């Protein structure tokens, strides 16, 4: 029963009827996913928090526009992606935040062992720095594919592209990422 009540359709319908508690549940359900997308695309925790909140503000305002033609998650991801791309267009580039940032610390219950965590931190910092050199389109497709683990069909719905465009963009994004990664490896090897 509780499961049926918490489905996306029920939550959005309850919210459309004026139940603000349903919106709170939606927020808590999707905040991590949305924040991950925002952090991957924007690259800065503060900006990612702002983008996340702006995304949910749009969800709040436009809930009645949601017609259920796609999954609610797809709709929210699409808003988040558009919000992040708009934020990147508006704001000047901010430096990539360190994972030691207060907002980027692991949650205590899900935190891996310290030695793994340090290694993972270094890797994620490297990924983030490489991603910073990519175009917003490439960042977006990589984030949706590897952070959110969306399928091609879901990416098509979120990005509004057809399958060929999604595949080409993803292919080029991987190549660009690998190119930057190789260049980075070379400079590290030289030093």
């Amino acid at each position, binding site marked *: 029963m509780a499961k049926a009540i918490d489905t996306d359709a029920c939550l959005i319908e309850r*919210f*459309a*009827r*004026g139940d603000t508690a349903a919106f*709170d549940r939606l*927020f*808590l359900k999707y*905040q*991590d996913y949305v*924040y*991950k997308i925002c*952090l991957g695309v924007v690259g800065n*925790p503060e900006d990612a*928090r702002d983008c*996340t*909140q702006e995304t*949910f*503000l749009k969800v*709040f*305002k436009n*809930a*009645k526009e949601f017609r259920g033609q796609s999954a609610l998650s797809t709709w929210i991801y699409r808003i988040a992606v558009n919000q992040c791309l708009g934020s990147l267009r508006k704001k000047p580039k901010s430096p990539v935040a360190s*994972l030691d940032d*207060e*907002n*980027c*610390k*692991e*949650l205590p219950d*899900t*935190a*891996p062992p310290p030695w793994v*965590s340090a290694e*993972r*931190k270094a*890797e*994620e910092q*490297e*990924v983030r720095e490489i991603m910073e050199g990519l175009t917003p389109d490439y960042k977006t497709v*990589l984030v949706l594919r*590897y*952070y959110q683990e969306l399928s091609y069909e879901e990416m098509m719905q979120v990005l509004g592209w057809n399958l060929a465009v999604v595949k080409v963009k993803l*292919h080029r994004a*991987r*190549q660009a*990422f*690998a190119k930057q*990664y*190789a260049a980075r*490896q070379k400079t590290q090897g030289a030093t």
Partner: protein
Amino acid sequence: MNCQKVENLLCAYVEGELTGRQGEALETHLGQCAGCREEAETLRSAIALLEAPKTMVRTEGLLEEFKAKYLPEAEAVPAPRWGIRLPVMPRFEWPSLSQVLVPMGGLAAAAAAALLVAVHSQPVAQRTAAQEPGPAVSRMAAMPPPAEAAPAAVASLPAARLNVSATPSGEKATPSLRVSAREPLHMRYSESQPVIASRAAHRRHRHQTSAIAAAIPPRPAHHRRHRSDGYQVAGRNTPASLVPESIWKQVPPRHDEVVPSPETQWQDQVVMIRRTATAAPADDGYGEASSKDLVTGKTDKSIALGGSPSPAAPAGEPVGDSGGGR
């Protein structure tokens, strides 16, 4: 398989999406080409880096922050089914000039006619003042009062637009009064009602706003001049003598045609019979022109300039035969 092709297929190969003969050919090439092999390894490690599980990020307190920061603003905007729904006010449309003139249609027409006729006839009156016994002013005074001059039929048509002109022709020209009713050019763009416009208005607006013109539905079939069922609907340019009496009446629409609603029907009806014919100028130049109200069939000489009303003029007499014109 060359290195260029391998470079294009490498991503798909590393992702495991490349199978079959292409995959085998690529693996063969990788076994022979050290550069491509190194590139494949780099790509594999880069994608492994991307695919590595991500550290959970802290999003605690985001909801509270959101509520404190945005909720007052968000609630100010009308949320779905929250707050008060204001009723949708009906759209106000300015009345067209013809609609404004309707209540005083006859009076306005006559007043305008009198003004124009006075302006046009004054030089002629001055020229002929020496030859004729009465001054021009007396002829003007002989005109009937405006209320009588106005054709009642014109006033009865709600959307009639009056064209009043006085045309002196030649030395002995008769400034004649022609009162014609034109099709209303009033256009309405409303979502609730179909857009119906006259052809002239349609043509004019089509050049101005193609988007609006595109939304205008085609003219209903029973309003077209040439119908497949044998009826012929007269238009503005149809000579009055060619219009039989049956056409004056509302031609019934065919069974498969859309009948406009009563409230919009008046806007698109063909208004073509309301022209008053003008008789040819008489020999003396004045007083012989007469007009015929084509709706009532009544000949009204009283609106002709300078002529005294002819009590003997029979009603329903054909145009041109009653006024002494040849």
